[in-house]
């Protein structure tokens, strides 16, 4: 009698869950794809009902067993495509309506032990998105895999490998990633690109290393009060001026980005040179330098 009494509500519950899942699948099929405009046409997050359903179940579970089952289901999916799961988790998190749902994606990633490299590979293609909200989420999560902390510059080594792969295959580095790295930390971006480009000759490496060092030293002095925020040293401007004529676009991009972020380094000569640069990245970063230069 007890079993019969228990089984009836349980069966009803299963039916209700089945119905709820069906409704969820129908609803998910109507959800908009998060649009991405960039170099890579596959860089989109289209919600997959078969993945969103267990994520929802994980977040809103009614008991421990239900949450565990949802996690097992996600683990099974992740076995075949971790990067897809990461993107689906980001989609879910972005669509969340409360704190628990927002935090659920992080809990899944932690429970499944998804690596930083997987997260980076999943999200880098999304850096080109025109969806500001998605871009913000992606940048936020990537910041986490770069080991950022107060007093520590971002570690772009995880991207260096991805860029080097592209270059070895005679491809171009992902545009969104390049833009993101240089905007985040032009110096670290320069060094990451230098290594990804596999420079071998010391006489090619040293001028780049030295210039970055000299400019970083000025920024360090500004930060800690050894120089006023709007003061620079002539040696740093000389180094930047030299690099602004470098044959590699990713070196000239460094100069353009430094000038954009730190107006005190600007000179009319460098602005004129970079504004007419043949590389679109450099021209893009140089846009507006003239307007702001006084």
């Amino acid at each position: 009698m007890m079993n019969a009494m228990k089984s009836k509500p349980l069966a009803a519950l299963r039916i209700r869950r089945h119905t709820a899942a069906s409704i969820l699948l129908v609803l998910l099929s109507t959800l908009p794809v998060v649009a991405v405009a960039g170099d890579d046409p596959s860089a989109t997050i289209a919600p997959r009902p078969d993945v969103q359903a267990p994520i929802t179940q994980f977040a809103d579970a009614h008991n421990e067993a239900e949450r565990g089952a949802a996690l097992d289901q996600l683990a099974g999916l992740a076995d075949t495509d971790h990067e897809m799961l990461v993107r689906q988790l980001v989609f879910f998190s972005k669509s969340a309506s409360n704190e628990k749902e927002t935090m659920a994606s992080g809990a899944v990633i932690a429970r499944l032990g998804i690596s930083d490299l997987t997260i980076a590979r999943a999200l880098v293609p999304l850096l080109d998105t025109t969806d500001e909200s998605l871009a913000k989420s992606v940048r936020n999560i990537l910041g986490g895999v770069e080991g950022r902390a107060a007093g520590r510059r971002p570690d772009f080594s995880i991207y260096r490998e991805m860029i080097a792969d592209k270059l070895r295959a005679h491809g171009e580095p992902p545009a969104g990633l390049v833009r993101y790295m240089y905007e985040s930390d032009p110096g670290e971006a320069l060094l990451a690109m230098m290594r990804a480009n596999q420079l071998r000759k010391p006489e090619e490496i040293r001028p780049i290393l030295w210039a970055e060092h000299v400019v970083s030293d000025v920024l360090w002095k500004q930060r800690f009060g050894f120089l006023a925020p709007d003061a620079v040293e002539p040696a740093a401007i000389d180094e930047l001026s030299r690099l602004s004529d470098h044959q590699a676009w990713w070196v000239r991009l460094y100069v353009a980005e430094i000038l954009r972020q730190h107006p005190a380094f600007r000179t009319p000569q460098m602005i004129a040179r970079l504004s007419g640069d043949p590389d679109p990245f450099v021209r893009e970063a140089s846009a507006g330098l003239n307007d702001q230069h006084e």
Partner: protein
Amino acid sequence: MLIQDNLAGEMEAVTAIRTCPLLIAVGLATLWIPGANRVRADSCPYACGDLDGDQTVGILDYSLFAECIGEAPSSSPTCLCADLDGSGTVDLHDFALLSLVFQATSDEAPPGCTGAIGSTADLMAYRPQHGAGYAPFIRTTIADADEEDATVGPGIRINGQGDIDPSGEDDLIEITVTIDPPGAQLALRRSAAALHAWTTRDKQAGTEIAFTSDKTAALPFAPTATELTLWIEWTSPSPGVAELDVEPVTSDVAKDTLVFHTFQSIVMALGGEDQVPSDPADPNNGTFVVATAFYSLGLDVHMYDEDNVGADGSGAVYNEVADAIQHRGVGEVVIFGYSHGGGSTYDLADLLDINRAGLGVFEITFTSYVDSVSNNSDVDVSQELRRPPSTDYHLNHYQHGSFFQDLGLDGGPVTDSNPPPTGLDVETTMWGANATHFIVDDYVQVRSLIESSLLGLVAP
């Protein structure tokens, strides 16, 4: 109580005074007079008839007047005020003038009293702005009882040279001047040249109200208007306290006073994921409930989404604090947060501490975690167990929950925290035994301990 008892029968006394004013006034001469010792010896600082300086002309002023009849004005500060017409004696002509302004006000002061009925004026000040207005706070008035208090009264940010104003010009304090009747000629007087007055919140050209010898000309009320909004600025780089009075153009007698003090501290409140700063705060966002309470109490509070603190501590919140330290004379920083806001509390304190050499002298006076989760990114779910670097006092609340209850999201013990030694696991208390990560910030006991701990440590 004595005053109240006497005032209760004041209307009856008025009739009697008009019948035989001198007799009644003499009879009341033995009453205790509040404020009489505030009269200065060199000149009468009060309006005509207001001998006790309580900003009303009542029966108590009559009693004071009676004591001075026949006395030389120079015999006491009160008698100086009793010589309303400046004739050199306190006589019936002065009494006639006093009767004319009885239970009214005067915009004149001895010795220039003519018996003309004056205006009333009231100043009201508001708590500080944020960006282009007050959001995420609501426009909050300062209670009359607090407006002359140099601690909980009108706080103002220093708006000196170099101030970056990361959120736009928002350092001016709004005040309203209310007058009766319309057309009354009233002016502002300041006690320090640091105070400036504008008719626009963003100091548009041509909208400053000039002070000459620390007093303005008649305020620019529209012909029939009874209220005027002004914006007060503190331009000196030095902190301090200063009075702003509203008074008749024709006298130096204050009708109302605001006492401004420059903020010495700044308070940053950081919520958890999906928590949006608002006022009134969502009761489920305990951090912001506490923040709005502090704002009402007069602290310079800023509420932020925790994502405004990057994993390296940089961002809009850091910029606001750095500007306050470098350009607004702020020497005390308070940071508190819940969940990822706790993790961001650590990151912000860490960057501030690292950058001390470039920022200047300041203390991180108070920090607080409520179930703090590290915030290296939105998907970071690890515990934040590090004490915020260089904080003088750290309060820590946490719970341990379960995977089912709260996805395993937990704060935890933090070395050298309060309550000692590592903070309070609320699940060890009667009231918090069923806590989960998602409700731990909402307990009144948690909020109250943050409030009481901070208020004992930080000056506004």
